[in-house]
């Protein structure tokens, strides 16, 4: 069997998502019989040149230089997969999109003029075509593994699309929203984490971002009815995937 030739790239991010590949400690050896990590700076020094079958891309595009690189990555990859909240919606660093980055630079860097940034930190899909999104902050290694295994068998990869609630119910969790009045983003968030937070009695923080065809504004209204404080509602939506189009609508109401 020909091995899947994989590249792993990083843009503005914390490295947590690509680390999930290395976190497959038990599977990694077996994985290497399906996959050749042709480019993976965090894991190996040697690099084979493209084209690649699959490029996993972590991080958001925040600088003019990154725009150039992502275009190059697109050219040399058959399938481009955005991994993690940064690469699918802008991630935590997109919080700066709500503030004035130029001003912040003055406080943080001795030579702010050396730091070139784009106005917004945004997902690669803003600049190039992205074929798949694997969500999460960080992505789950189970999903990464499943994606790789499916691809290596020539199967069209499938990823979860329904709400976290569906996973919550399948798993047999008690709904924290209905039974405890805890604000939970589950009903508008893409599944895939196995309803991790509600499994521990906490509301979902939405780190997998908006599901397909979500209704965050309806959940917003519901939270208000439950007397959740406006600031709390805003902060709930303004987390890992704050710059996603759907969550933005709610956040803006409170800006």
């Amino acid at each position, binding site marked *: 069997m020909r091995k899947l030739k994989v590249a792993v790239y990083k843009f503005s991010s914390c490295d947590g998502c690509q680390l999930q590949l290395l976190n497959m400690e038990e*599977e990694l050896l*077996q*994985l290497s019989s399906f996959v050749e990590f042709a480019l993976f700076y965090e894991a190996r020094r040697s690099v084979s040149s493209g084209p690649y079958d699959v490029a996993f891309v972590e991080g958001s595009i925040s600088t003019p230089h990154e725009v150039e690189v992502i275009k190059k990555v697109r050219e040399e990859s058959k399938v481009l997969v955005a991994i993690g909240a940064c690469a699918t919606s802008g991630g935590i660093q997109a919080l700066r999109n709500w503030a004035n980055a130029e001003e912040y630079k003055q406080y943080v860097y001795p030579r702010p003029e050396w730091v070139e940034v784009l106005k917004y930190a945004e997902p690669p899909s803003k600049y190039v075509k992205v074929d798949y999104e694997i969500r999460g902050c960080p992505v789950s290694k189970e999903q990464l*593994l*499943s994606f790789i*295994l*499916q691809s290596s*068998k020539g*199967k069209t990869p*499938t990823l979860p*699309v*329904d*709400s976290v*609630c*569906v996973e919550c*119910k*399948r*798993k*047999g969790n*008690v*709904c924290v*929203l*209905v*039974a*405890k009045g805890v604000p*939970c983003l*589950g*009903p*508008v968030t893409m599944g895939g984490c196995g309803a991790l937070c509600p499994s521990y*009695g906490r509301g979902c923080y939405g780190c997998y971002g908006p*599901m*397909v*065809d*979500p*209704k965050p504004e*309806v*959940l917003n*209204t*519901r939270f208000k009815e439950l007397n959740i404080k406006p600031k709390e509602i805003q902060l709930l939506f303004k987390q890992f995937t704050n710059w996603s189009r759907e969550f933005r609508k709610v956040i803006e109401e409170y800006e």
Partner: protein
Amino acid sequence: MSLTGLYVGRAVSLRILFSELRRLGYVVIGYKVVDGVLRLGELNSFEELAHDVEDIQSPGKYSLVSGDFYRHGPDSPKRFLYPPTLTLFKVSSEWVVSVPAYEERNIAFFGLKPCDLASIKVLDKILLGVDEYYTSLRKNLVLVVENCVSPGGTCFCSTMNTGPRARDSFDLAYTRLNDKLVVEAGSELGLKLLNLLEVEPIDDVTYERFEVMMRNASEKARAGFELNGLPEELELRIESKTYEEIVEKCLGCANCNMVCPTCFCFDVFDVPLIDGSAERVRVWDGCLNFTYGQVAGGHFRPDLWARYRHFVLHKLAYWIKQFGMYGCVGCGRCITWCPTGIDLRETVKKVLRGGKGG
């Protein structure tokens, strides 16, 4: 049907019933208090069965308080008979296909509510003889039903003719009238169990009380619409704008599908494993999920209101054509467990009120 008519015994003899089922080798499943709600689970002792609690249910809300009568929680028998995740078969790396042997289990539901008994009758129609897992469990299933003297805030079984008193298809049905127990057997096994309980034929006074309580309960569990001609009326109003109005409050989260004791829709995934083998897995799915109506080349119901309308009409109209019975048993779970409290009863009433064009 009742084999025996009504008998009276003492409420404490439920314990005997429980022990006997265990002695006969049944896994006894009943309601326990878990995480502040009632959950169906295996009971290792009679004490584990929920007691002295009441569930307060209303649209989008659920809580437990102390009390002496409860109805149900988010689980229904579906969770056991038609599990949320099931491996259908495995394919080894050498392409050998194997179907997992479903372990024979003798399950007895204890204190199940009449609406849930009715949901098993609905599932029978759909899955019995079709779904192997279901069929294997159904064969030896024992159903001990507790009639409802006090329906909850989202119950509407009277309207759906499924409760609050079970009329047939049970092994044993009991009703708690304070310290008394009114019992009837519906099968040979039920009769055997009944004989262990020190009961006597019901006296007139108790019978009167029982009838009054059941009548009152029945009044409480009405939806505010009638079943007569309902499928036709709903189909006539299929263009009703009401669905769009209601769905302004809908999240498309599919909690309603998941908690519904009769929703049987599923999705199938092929899961490759690292050792080169693979599994085909079936999971609960539902029509409120976006991808459910998505097919190669298009989508049947891209709009949420159309998905919601499908849910309502499937339960209350199409099911009749499909299976000759209603798909809704009036348990009210979809109302309670909807995060925004969308109320199926209100939807139906509103659609009916709207007239043909509305």
